[in-house]
């Protein structure tokens, strides 16, 4: 059973377009994180959200944690080729402090 479901699995869009990717669960999480991974490297943390309804912005990236702390979204404005990569959501379920990951969204931005 996959606790964190990410959608879409793959997304290929033109440079300059906007996009949103999603991370959903039926479980409540103490915190959710978004990581980005490039080929041959380990994932790198982009952001952590801990409060239901929280919104965080990182330049052109906007992250939101659902009110019930069961889901999160990542919105990218004016996507650039440098945004290409595997985006992974991760989190620790309430009552369990280990970090688990979703299967990721593979994003490809076409120049």
């Amino acid at each position: 059973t996959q606790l964190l479901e990410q959608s879409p699995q793959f997304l290929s869009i033109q440079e300059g377009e906007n996009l949103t990717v999603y991370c959903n669960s039926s479980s409540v999480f103490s915190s959710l994180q978004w990581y980005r991974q490039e080929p041959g490297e380990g994932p790198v943390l982009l952001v952590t959200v801990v409060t239901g309804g929280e919104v965080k912005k990182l330049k052109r990236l906007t992250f939101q944690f659902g009110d019930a702390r069961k889901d999160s979204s990542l919105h990218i404005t004016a996507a650039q080729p440098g945004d290409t990569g595997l985006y992974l959501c991760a989190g620790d379920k309430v009552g369990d402090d280990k970090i688990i990951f979703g299967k990721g969204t593979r994003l490809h931005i076409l120049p």
Partner: protein
Amino acid sequence: GAGVSQSPSNKVTEKGKDVELRCDPISGHTALYWYRQRLGQGLEFLIYFQGNSAPDKSGLPSDRFSAERTGESVSTLTIQRTQQEDSAVYLCASSGGIWGKLFFGSGTQLSVL
């Protein structure tokens, strides 16, 4: 060192052989994780060490897999009698202080022929 170090970076082995993968976490980090990543997939949790607590082994796929950690230092992941389906990148991460922030090594690419 400044980051998480994993060795070897690549390992090719024959089916049925045992392999040992090593992880050197960031000094002072109390938490250490092992994950498996198959080609094009997300990270599959294997095992989690936190300080002196008993490790969470709930993600180990079979009894051929085991891991040890010496105090809050080096960890080794051992796979006995390797099978072709064990081929994957094995990633180690450590964490300390900042909630949820994992620092990853570059992984060990394991290929079982």
